[in-house]
């Protein structure tokens, strides 16, 4: 079973040289720590920055330079800054190669719910609806089951949707799964020490799970 950093590390293997990538808040942010050597990616922050650098060292934080999580950050050589409309313009026109974001639920048809729990305080969707509606390649990083032990990989989302039929890949603490165009979760890899049976029990949606599914490999 993976921890949050393990999920981030596994997702980082999906990065390809030359990718422009948008990382959501939470586990996706950690992916930046595991970008493989020799792979150059440019991180987009949807408040208006391409080429997001690491957090500043003390004394060099700039209140005018933050990321979409409102954290102080830095720029890198080659960075560019733009307004919010252009930021979502490049998202909508699919200039961003990969979007990685968290979710509360994902359905076997690639629907995602990650912004609202009815009856609880609603904070808003931020840029998530724009991202999932337009991105050509979306990976969801999340826990396989919720705190109550219920599967978050479902036949149909029960929470209000963020986007429909848009998620292609899910990485959890237990597994890497593709979502098939015809519907269903295709198990691709198991987390170290996790059995296929265990993943079957943790997945409520339709699961195609070959008995010989390999374990994830980390270098």
């Amino acid at each position: 079973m993976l921890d949050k950093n393990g999920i981030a590390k596994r997702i980082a293997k999906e990065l390809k040289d030359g990718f422009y990538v948008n990382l959501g808040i939470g586990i996706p942010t950690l992916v930046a720590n595991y970008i493989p050597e020799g792979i150059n990616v440019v991180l987009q922050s949807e408040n208006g920055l391409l080429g997001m650098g690491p957090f500043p060292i003390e004394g060099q934080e700039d209140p005018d330079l933050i990321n979409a999580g409102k954290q102080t950050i830095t720029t890198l050589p080659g960075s560019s800054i733009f307004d919010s409309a252009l930021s979502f313009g490049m998202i909508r026109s699919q200039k961003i190669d990969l979007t990685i974001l968290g979710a509360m639920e994902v359905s076997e048809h690639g629907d995602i719910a990650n912004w609202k729990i009815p009856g609880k305080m609603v904070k808003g969707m931020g840029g998530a609806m724009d991202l999932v509606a337009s991105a050509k390649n979306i990976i969801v990083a999340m826990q396989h089951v919720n705190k109550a032990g219920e599967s978050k990989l479902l036949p149909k989302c029960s929470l209000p949707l963020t986007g429909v039929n848009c998620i292609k890949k899910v990485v959890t603490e237990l597994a890497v799964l593709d979502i098939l165009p015809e519907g269903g979760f295709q198990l691709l890899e198991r987390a170290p020490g996790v059995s296929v049976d265990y993943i079957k029990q943790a997945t409520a949606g339709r699961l195609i799970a070959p008995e010989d599914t390999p374990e994830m490999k980390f270098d």
Partner: protein
Amino acid sequence: MINKVVAGADEAIHDLKDGQTLMLGGFGLCGIPENCINALVRKGIKDLTCISNNAGVDDFGIGLLLQSRQVKKMISSYVGENAEFERQLLSGELEVELIPQGTLATRCLAAGYGMPAIFTPAGVGTEVAEGKEVRNFNGKEYLMEYAFEADFAIVKAWKGDTAGNLIYKSTARNFNPVMATAGKITIAEVEELVEAGELDPDQIHTPGVYVHRIFQGVDYEKRIEQRTLRSKNP
């Protein structure tokens, strides 16, 4: 040269009235028009509809307008950092319309570009789409979203000149340029106001034609919401 300069925030907002709709630039607390927000609190006008990506924090930014109960409705994409906001929302004192961030930005852009509506895929198949026209282009569905109509747009820039031209700094740019184009009256507060001719025309982000009133702000706090640091020794 047309001179857009006013003395300060109080003069800039002097004719803003109860019940009007205003855009406020900024992302979180970054690039918000601090001086004008303080002036709005001083003026005490009420029942405002505020279009802004966020709603500030309890004791800063738009949170100050919420504290003094001056806001009737917020139109935002993310409002998570504000306990007073939550209290007013749950008690029914405050109306809130949550819309996708890109839709928010592009509805401002449409207003400034003279286009009545946009088509965006954001929100198709979700509750955001309820009651909205859906159009199919090349096999993909899009929602029709209308350009905003705002009585005032209030933005913050880094530098400006007496002709109203604006330059923003770093990610404090965010929603400011699109909102600057979108107000019936646009007010810009700047950290440094210079004479027309002192800014390089090639470097202007917002042309002065969009800006009706400009002044040099004072006492910028520029509060940081999430101070995140890395250690000096990697």
